[in-house]
């Protein structure tokens, strides 16, 4: 009876492998940087919790188990973001940022719950509603538009070890959800087009954001988001294996970029030649170039917009 709640197939295997590799990397990095600090036990507990949730989610055979895993993972992700916070000093003015990630998670849960309820009560004829809810949850989880602002902020506020888990595993769970529910929406053209379009816009926007980023961690976040957008397109087009390969590649790329940050460069060393390299944007007319630059630099006001409602 119990085992019917679990399901094991190629998709699970792929995610299991990625999860194993990324968790190992994260723990290895955490051991180097956090060991001996008071955060180390917290980190271990958060990672274990995260693994439990991740495992539950990818091995789940039904929405109920999935939701349980999702919840546990959400709590663990939140713990990872607030890992280095010291709450003794009271009123941390920046608590709003992890709170934002937490809020997005809760919204995702609500989406899943609604999807569960809808699939029970509305029946097959309302498959579009269920698919839509699943899609919303997936794009929240994967930091796609219009919920894209949680990942860069979560990443820039967490330790490298925690950031690896967030940037590679948490984000890819949205793709997992889409792949898992694939049989459900594969015959609905409108949903597939919608997923593709969402992925396309997210990829285009995130690529632009990433190009003008001067902060390493935020850049990693946006690169990850852009790739996930592409993966959404692949999933929508039905290239499931390609999507899985892309997921793995993206995870390893993200982990590499986080683990091997570039070195600081002082003002008077090195050559300035490569810095004044011309990019394709330089060929654009000036007005257009500056406009696009400012557009991406302001990140479309996404932060301001979401922060307005989540002011700590």
């Amino acid at each position: 009876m119990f085992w019917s709640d679990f399901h094991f197939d190629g998709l699970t295997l792929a995610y299991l492998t990625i999860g194993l590799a990324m968790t190992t990397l994260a723990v290895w990095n955490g051991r180097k940087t956090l060991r001996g600090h008071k955060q180390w036990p917290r980190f271990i507990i958060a990672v274990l919790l995260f693994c439990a949730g991740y495992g539950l989610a990818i091995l789940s055979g039904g929405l109920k188990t999935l939701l349980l895993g999702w919840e546990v993972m959400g709590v663990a992700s939140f713990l990872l973001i607030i890992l280095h916070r010291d709450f003794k000093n009271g009123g941390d003015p920046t608590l709003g940022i992890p709170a934002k990630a937490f809020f997005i998670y809760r919204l995702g849960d609500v989406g899943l719950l609604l999807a569960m309820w809808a699939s029970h009560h509305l029946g097959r004829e309302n498959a579009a509603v269920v698919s839509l809810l699943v899609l919303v949850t997936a794009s929240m989880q994967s930091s796609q538009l219009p919920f894209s602002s949680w990942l860069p902020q979560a990443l820039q506020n967490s330790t490298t070890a925690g950031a690896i888990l967030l940037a590679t595993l948490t984000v890819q769970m949205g793709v997992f959800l889409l792949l898992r529910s694939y049989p459900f929406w594969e015959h609905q053209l409108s949903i597939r087009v919608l997923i593709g379009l969402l992925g396309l816009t997210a990829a285009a926007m995130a690529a632009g954001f990433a190009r003008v980023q001067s902060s390493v961690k935020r850049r990693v976040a946006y690169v990850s988001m852009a790739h996930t957008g592409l993966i959404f397109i692949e999933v929508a087009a039905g290239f499931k294996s390609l999507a899985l390969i892309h997921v793995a590649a993206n995870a390893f790329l993200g982990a590499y970029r986080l683990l091997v940050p570039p070195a600081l460069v002082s003002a008077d060393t090195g050559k300035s030649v490569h810095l004044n390299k011309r990019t394709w944007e330089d060929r654009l007319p000036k007005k257009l170039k500056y406009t696009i630059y400012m557009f991406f630099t302001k990140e479309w006001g996404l932060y301001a917009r979401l922060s307005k409602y989540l002011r700590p």
Partner: protein
Amino acid sequence: MTARNNSFDELAVLHELKRFLPALSPGRTFTHRNPLEAFQHLHFHDALRHASEMLGYQTSLSLEEYRSLYNSKRVKPDVLEKVLVEKKGAAKTFEWQDKVLMKKFPAAVAAPRIGRLRANWQKQYKTDPDTCVHPRLFRILGNYLDHGVSDWSFPVRGQGFLDSMREVEANSFISAFNTPRARKMLLQTDPSIGDLLAIIVGDEALFKQYLFDQQFSHRGWSGLVATLERNSSNLLNGSHITLRELIVFELLLEIDVLDDRLGKQWDPLASSLASPPSDLFAPVPASEKSEVLAIWQEAVEWSYYEEVLAGLSRNSPNQHSSHTLGTVRTSAPESLCIIGRPTVVRDTPPGYRAALHHYDFSLDRDGAELERMLETVVPSLGATNLEYFFSRTNFADVNGGNALGDQLIGLFGVADGTRGDLRTGLPTELTEGLEPIRLLCIVEHFHEMVLKVIGRRSVGRRSVGRRSVAQWIMNEWVHLVVIDPLTRELRVLKNGEMVGYKSDPLKYSLSVAGDW
């Protein structure tokens, strides 16, 4: 400190700000500057008190840390007693010993003076412009100064910061500002800091304090900009920026945010100020707690120096017998410097890292050579030492934990995650587990001559750089011990006088009955 004058002098205030801001160079090249340079005209402990009260710097370890050093025998009881006697007199030793070891001081310290004026935005207008201004300012600054992270670097190259922003603003359909007024001011006028402050603050008497509040809310970025301006070294991408440009742009952003939040019409900050905030630059009176901390700091330092000095005093022939390599102490590098003949160096107990400078007193009758050496050695070693010192004391700061969540910005700095400001000071890995200890400079010469040399430094030539060596020593930013070449007698410079230092090489303890 300068008196607050009612007419706002932009240049003077900018100059002073640059003195106070931490030196932070891109890529963390070492700055060779005392982090508390602006306070260097004060005696060391007074400077610590002022810096912590005015700017909120954590300038000493916490009482708990000092006490735990005492409990782990790193601070020796007899040294502590000696410091107490010296500072408070024999009669009050017992009373102060109780205060030092036992007394509980209220944990909640009053907020530092910096930031009090700008806190009124929250109090009076229920809005904090920083939450909106900072992310935008740091993003744009980061992009402008970035030399290697972003694929698409700032589109305007080879111009100053404000000119570049003007160029982008004039030619872009999307503005960095959300409201028209600030944008117009940038494009159509060349506003001075005073003009902008007149809109935001109103009262000229408060301008200077407002600027200090504002710039110290992100002292890392401001310090970086000030350093870039001082070295007038263009960044790799050919951009250059001055502190004035940063302030003007930040004030414009502030006007923008306030216009956005409070509507088109709002009164300047000063108009609704209930009471004028306390003067940022007023002298800070000594408190019981600051005295206790100063006593602890001296005790930590002399517990460390004592072993070195005991090795140097030649009164007893069996001095080396009890030295073992096991007594290696974890102090900051550059905490010991010896200027003398090789014999002095040989007497240094093993296990201490010392910067050695060969110097023969007999060849330097008038002290000219010593003068030259002190001038090179003290400021450079002292600056390194103090950089470690204050990075260590800051370690216990709230930021200490956040060091784990740091992120590289534009290959020139590391921001701490939560506030987005650049981190100043050394990375925590370098200072972890160290004891903050000032540089001890041991000079082999007759003490009258050394005093004369230092005296020459302080009065003779009037340039600041030359005077500062005497300032370093006389204000005890560096401890100076003179070892007599003939009698091997030790003398310590305390409050401008050379006082005898007795140490018992056998027990490594200081006798209380000296002429201290």
